[in-house]
């Protein structure tokens, strides 16, 4: 009944955008998505799988109503081959129907060897594609009936698929998190093997290129459960102008390759701190003693002490550690790793 489904569309669209906005893990959302699709049109079994383009494999996230034998197939590489044959690995592919009219080529082996013997009469495959064309994974809906679904149903599924893709997009929370730095002018995503992925909506920057000192600093310092890191960085090597770097740890994901979102934004008020004092703060943040600061920056011990005293006055801090912690929390320091020329001798 197409008219019935049309009235359902706003409700389903709304619930899907709520699912996409929730911060649940993909695996937890999968049953909810299938339940929602079930209301658009019934099926007897279904599964959600995520595609890992790097290893060209499918990660079975959730299945329901399937026997152990079928689940084995769903977790096997054979599934990827079937999807390939059915164009289901293609971006923006419309829903694909499989039923007994499909020729018995070994191209769609899974259907004939597993789904059909399990008693299913038809299967509808959905390709989950993001708005920017990334193939994220697939959903399969199996029914005992052999009757092909009507066009209106397929059209509704097609529309819903776009919204469903959003729920499973690993970059969704990441992009949402990046919105927290409201004045960011550049950004990138740092992955676990220290590569970079562009961040939707923000340009990249030379400072954020793969292997750059800024990204190495982030990788070295944002771990052990730290969620956020802010520091200052010269806009180019040796420059007197500074930019603010904010790194936000990516929440866990089944294909957990994302490390953090790294953003550049205009620097915060500096309380009159000089570049030298910001360098000293970078060392205090790392727990350097006054003597170690002097050694690291090639200063007379008395000069280092004077710097620390000035910093404490400017930050209205009652002790050097209070100053260091205040700097750490506001991102008011130049990390020692970024002015490499002068240190390394100091104890860490």
């Amino acid at each position, binding site marked *: 009944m197409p008219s019935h489904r049309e009235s359902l569309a706003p409700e389903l*669209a709304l619930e899907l955008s709520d699912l996409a906005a929730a911060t649940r893990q993909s695996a937890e959302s999968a049953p909810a998505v299938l339940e929602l699709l079930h209301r658009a049109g019934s099926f007897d079994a279904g599964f959600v799988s995520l595609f890992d383009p790097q290893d060209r494999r499918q990660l079975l996230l959730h299945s329901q109503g399937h026997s152990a034998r079928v689940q084995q197939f769903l977790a096997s590489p054979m599934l990827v081959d079937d999807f390939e044959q059915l164009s289901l690995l293609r971006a923006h592919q419309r829903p694909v129907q499989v039923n007994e009219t499909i020729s018995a080529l070994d191209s769609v082996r899974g259907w004939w060897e597993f789904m059909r013997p399990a008693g299913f009469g038809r299967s509808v495959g959905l390709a989950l594609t993001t708005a920017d064309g990334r193939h994220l994974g697939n959903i399969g809906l199996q029914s005992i009936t052999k009757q092909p679904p009507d066009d209106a149903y397929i059209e509704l599924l097609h529309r819903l698929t776009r919204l469903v893709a959003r729920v499973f997009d690993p970059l969704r929370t990441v992009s949402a998190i990046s919105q927290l730095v409201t004045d960011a002018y550049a950004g990138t995503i740092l992955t676990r093997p220290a590569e970079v992925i562009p961040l939707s909506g923000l340009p990249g920057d030379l400072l954020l290129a793969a292997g750059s000192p800024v990204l190495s600093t982030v990788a070295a310092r944002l771990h052990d459960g730290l969620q956020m890191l802010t520091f200052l960085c010269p806009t180019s090597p040796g420059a007197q102008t500074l930019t603010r770097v904010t790194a936000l740890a990516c*929440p866990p994901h089944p294909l957990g390759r994302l490390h953090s979102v790294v953003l550049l934004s205009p620097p915060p008020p500096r309380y009159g701190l000089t570049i030298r004092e910001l360098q000293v703060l970078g060392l205090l943040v790392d727990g350097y003693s006054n003597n170690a600061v002097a050694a690291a920056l090639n200063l007379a011990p008395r000069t280092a002490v004077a710097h620390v005293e000035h910093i404490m006055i400017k930050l209205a801090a009652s002790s050097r550690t209070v100053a*260091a*912690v205040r700097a750490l*929390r*506001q991102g008011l320091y130049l990390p020692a790793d970024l002015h490499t020329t002068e240190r390394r001798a100091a104890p860490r």
Partner: protein
Amino acid sequence: MTGAAPDAEMLIFDLADIANRPCSLAARAEALLTTIRSVIAHDAAFLSLFEPERCLHSPLARYGYSAQRKRHLDSPAFADDITTLGLLGPAPAATVLSVDASEIYVPLRAGGDYLGLFGLRTTAPERWQEQLTVVAPIIARAIDPRQKLTAMASLVADPIAATVLTRAGSTEPLPGLPGLEACGPAAPVVAEARALLSAGASHASFLAVGASAGYLKVTVLATAGLPPGHRSGIVLMSDPGHLHGLTRPELTVLGLHLAGWDDRRIHEHLDLTAGSLLESICRKLAAPGRDAAIVQAAAHGLYLPAAPA
């Protein structure tokens, strides 16, 4: 499929698409207005967020209005008008026509809360009433600022409670999580969080002792810059994680150092030698010196904040 129905349905999906787009609320609002314009002909429109503490609407996107009209839309007088027209309150109308029937206003609400307003100036606006009622919830989702706060909460793994702090000194719940009071007395935690935010911290964490005497990790994140701008930060409670075997006196000493107390004062206050505690703290945190240990403890939120003097 003829007539207006497919258009309306397309509109819902297009708006839902925008609702999840990774961009600022203002950019989303722009995109929503552009999309709506392609289906519903009109010559002026706005999307605005309601600021409860100042009791006025601040615009996210709008076009077609004169400077004078814009001033009116931003004024407390307009917010009062909206109340009178019956758009706020427990049983609000789904849509309301302006007095001269040239404009239609749609209240945007999510989870029972009034978020803001969608307005449209067109000839015979009443014929769009039904369609606007259908799409209003999706528009509301798209511009709900709390969605950004929820995204922020995802920085903390498995939060168990949360509270949003406002500039005026009150608190708001974060949709989807119980308030801090679910974990024990919230007032000292909120006070410490406010102190950190007003000292300019963009993020900070510390420990609190929960109702069951176990430790909880408190994470504070500044939300300055997120519209409508009356929220100053968000406070999240989670499992304390790895405490490196630090004892209660050690966590207390760390908190006192971070509050700027000197050794002698700490010694007198706690009636013990803070120096010797710092030695064991350094060992447990594998820190090269006492300053390193204190900063490290602050970075990881491994301390019990000193009670305000």
